[in-house]
């Protein structure tokens, strides 16, 4: 038992509480700086975790094996902290659209959600899984509906609430069934006994119901239906965090469940995963084609990306998992960049229609270039992060096809290819709106604050770095994938 392992999580929660309290003492016009303070604090945590001094760098288990720190959790924790920092930057830009006096709450809720994600990264037990997921989800209910004055925000919140609760109910029931048949909640111990129950329908039903809950988090088919509405209605920083943090948390749990808890069962589900992945890719991309609302478009695109990420799961191999994580790392910067631009451009517009981007090239070349690069990266084109990620995912899938002789994998690879092509269509639609649509009436320049410039620069640098110099991140993900296989 080594409770010091959760120091990082405790620090984050403490930071969240401090922010809430700070709200009482900081004058209203200074509230923006609460956010910057939080960013600095998170930055310190990130640096300590990167340098290997933080609690998450000690590889051990705690709480009777419920909580585990390993290379996998380390990778995801760093990812979550980076995402949270970027979201906080975004929130600081967005703060004038939030209700007066609630900005600090918004920051602290982000930190609580982050804490949930950090726990998720380390959970090695169904109890832990449930609690961390709920911590994330419940926080997100609030984050999504945070613009109480906006009906769409509330509507999105309620939809997320009902469907989220529904998926939780399925998941809890699934956990109950698993525990009922095997008597184990701990992943590691479950892995030891699971083979005896491989033919038990109840056990399999339980595992499937857990997957339903996780599938909801990552917005995979057939549980993707909520994503567009919620992405559209939520405040933009929330959407960004939802697209990354929540999705990544779902994936880390999915990896743990499938490859640590029930690897024997997973091995038989290659076709299931292939089909889910393929349909998710196609659904997200096809629905996005006629879409004009930018945030909703990214909602659909996020479904498609869940599908791409599932390629790494479906490959059932360490290289697949490594590719998945690599892709997520690139995805963080890319999506953040895209939402950052949307936040800045759309904050004074009534609509979120793509046509609002017209003339962006004149209004702010930096934002125009950033959004273009983000779209190019999402589409998977060199030299940006999306390309190398997709490259690794495709490689993993083809490798799986060659080692398992399952031709479904080839079909999956070609489906992914079709998806990429379709996605090019709408991503280039966005680029076209920026550069060669009719000039708008409003051509006033967009003024950027220096933190905004800094964070956009960070996103761009991240996209390029991960796309061109893959070595560092790839080593991390390879280690993480190796930790999963143990």
């Amino acid at each position, binding site marked *: 038992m080594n409770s010091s392992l959760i120091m990082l999580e405790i620090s984050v929660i403490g930071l969240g509480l401090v922010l809430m309290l700070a709200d009482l003492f900081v004058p209203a016009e200074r509230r923006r700086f609460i956010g910057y303070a939080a960013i600095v604090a998170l930055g310190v945590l990130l640096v300590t975790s990167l340098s290997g001094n933080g609690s998450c760098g000690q590889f051990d288990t705690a709480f009777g094996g419920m909580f585990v720190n390993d290379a996998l959790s380390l990778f995801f924790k760093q990812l979550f902290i980076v995402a949270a920092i970027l979201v906080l930057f975004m929130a600081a830009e967005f703060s004038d659209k939030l209700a007066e006096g609630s900005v600090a709450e918004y920051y602290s809720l982000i930190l609580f959600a982050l804490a949930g994600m950090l726990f998720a990264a380390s959970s090695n037990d169904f109890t832990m899984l449930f609690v961390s997921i709920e911590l994330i989800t419940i926080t997100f209910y609030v984050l999504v509906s945070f613009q109480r004055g906006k009906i769409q925000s509330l509507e999105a919140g309620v939809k997320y609430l009902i469907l989220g609760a529904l998926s939780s109910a399925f998941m809890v029931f699934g956990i109950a069934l698993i525990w009922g048949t095997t008597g184990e909640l701990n992943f590691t111990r479950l892995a030891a006994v699971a083979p005896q129950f491989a033919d038990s329908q109840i056990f399999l039903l339980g595992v499937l119901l857990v997957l339903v809950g996780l599938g909801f988090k990552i917005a995979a088919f057939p549980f993707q239906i909520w994503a567009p509405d919620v992405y559209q209605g939520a405040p933009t920083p929330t959407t960004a965090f939802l697209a990354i943090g929540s999705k990544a948390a779902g994936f880390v749990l999915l990896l743990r469940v499938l490859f640590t808890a029930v690897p024997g069962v997973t091995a038989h589900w290659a076709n299931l995963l292939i089909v889910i992945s393929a349909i998710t890719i196609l659904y997200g991309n096809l629905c996005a084609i006629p879409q004009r609302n930018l945030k909703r478009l990214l909602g659909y695109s996020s479904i498609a990306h869940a599908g791409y990420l599932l390629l790494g799961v479906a490959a059932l191999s360490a290289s697949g998992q490594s590719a998945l994580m690599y892709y997520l790392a690139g995805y963080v910067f890319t999506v953040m960049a895209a939402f950052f631009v949307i936040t800045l451009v759309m904050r004074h517009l009534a609509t979120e229609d793509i046509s609002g981007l017209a003339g962006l*090239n004149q209004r702010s*070349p930096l934002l125009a270039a950033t959004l*273009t690069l983000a779209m*190019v990266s999402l589409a998977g*084109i*060199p*030299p940006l992060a999306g*390309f190398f990620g997709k*490259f690794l995912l*495709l*490689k993993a899938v*083809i*490798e799986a096809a*060659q080692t398992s002789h399952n031709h479904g994998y080839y079909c999956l*690879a*070609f489906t992914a*290819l079709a998806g*990429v*092509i379709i996605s*090019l*269509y709408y991503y*280039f639609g966005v*680029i*076209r709106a920026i*550069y*060669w649509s009719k000039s708008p009436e409003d051509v006033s320049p967009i003024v950027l604050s220096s933190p905004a410039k800094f964070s956009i620069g960070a996103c761009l640098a991240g996209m390029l770095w991960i796309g061109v110099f*893959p*070595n560092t991140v*790839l*080593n991390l993900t*390879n280690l993480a994938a190796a930790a999963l296989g143990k």
Partner: protein
Amino acid sequence: MSILTYIAGWPLLAALLLVLVPRNYRVIIRAIAVLATLISAVLAVKMFAQFVPGANGFQFEQQIPWVESLGISYHVGVDGLNVGLILMGAIVAFAAALCSWEIQTREKEFYILLLVMTGGILGAFASLDVFFFYFLHELALVPTFIMIGVWGRGEKKNYATFQITLYLSIGALIALIGLIALYLKSGANTFDIPKIIEHAKANPLSVNAQNFIFPLLLFGFGILVSLWPFHSWAPLGYGVAPSPTAMLHAGVLKKFGLYGLIRIALPLLPQAAQSWAHVIAWLCVGNILYVGWVAMRQKDLNLLIGNSSVAHMGFIFLGIASLNLIGVTGAILIMVAHGFLAALTFALSGYIYKQTGTLQISELGGLCRKLPFIGTALLMAAMAGCGLPGFANFFGEATVFFGAWTTFPAVTVIALWGALVIGGIYMTRAIRNILHGPLPEKWASLADATNAWRKLPYALLLASLLLFGFVPKLLTEKINPDARKIVALATVENKTGVVIATRSSGRESAPNLLAENQRRLASVATK
């Protein structure tokens, strides 16, 4: 640092530099772009001159490990296969930068994209690592789409932009799947082409695996090169593209797929190449004959040039399909020659468009009177396009015919018809309608290219065409030794002993093959 790194690196560096230059400094932006491409071109000429034909292995090599866990390294080097292509690419890029004066809006972005495109494609040709080979090509490809979208012309711009974007991306991705499958199947755990080839000599890929991978590469690369029936993007895209983009794409970028087939597919997938050769050969008929007919019907100069450029790709494919030394050498020769030619024609049509605002052939006429320089250059380009001796294309095409004759006589005859007759028909018709005949009143005020800078790109490209047309040996003696190696690898007998390409040299083995040839000829004669 290898000179190749500089050749590809200068444009990329200049692109970064341009990001920092304020957009109002138009002259400086243009000067930087022209200078960067000029340095590239000069270095490429130097490299070409220093290249030692037939030396063992690669020259000007440089290797930096990049991603050790996957075996990816930055590895550049030249041998006979790519030395000409890099030279051609650098010269065309310089010409394209010079021709970019026709771009008047958003110059900064345009030149950045142009330089990225240049650096990317030169790097791709120099690259000896499958990953970088693909990566750099994609890097060069994407600016094309944006350039066509932003600076393109005509009402069909949007449609054409999306068409070319999606179509080429499909091709690139199919090829990517093929390349990844090849990497995995080879078992060498490296993306380094020489190492994979070395490894494959000892452990050849199974015929099944080859037969799976080869079509992926063939059609993936084929789409990029507008292999029939995947060609319809090309005329459409070039029809709307701004001329510097069309020059670089049609001239240089398009050769990537062909180069990939020769560099990667032939030596690593010999048996599949042998069994697919006849498919390629017959698809060439589509390129040469069918697209030639399509070109005859075009009413827009750029569409005509675009179609004719597609038709030329057929000859290159035919050379590759022949799988012998003569054919493959000829294919590379055409790749270089067509690069200059396509760039020249698109540059000229761009000039005419800039002057007249239209490329509808029926609107034009008699331009030779007002535009003697441009008209003469266009005439020469058209003649080079229908394979006139004196221009580099002729030797390429003739060599391909000689190479293909021994393996695919019937296709060769069709290709001859396409080259000599159909090419002649549409080219002379175009000349008749654009340059000859009376000059319509409205074009009385057209201005010819008089300034030396304006003339330079055309003159440079024409001079290159003529130089390699008169002294093809400059290229062939470089290509030959390395093409011989590739062909030797590509014609390895497989276990069942079925070999399609039997002959790499004519004179020595002529008598032995007489009987066989006569049988073939008899069958052609009866057809």
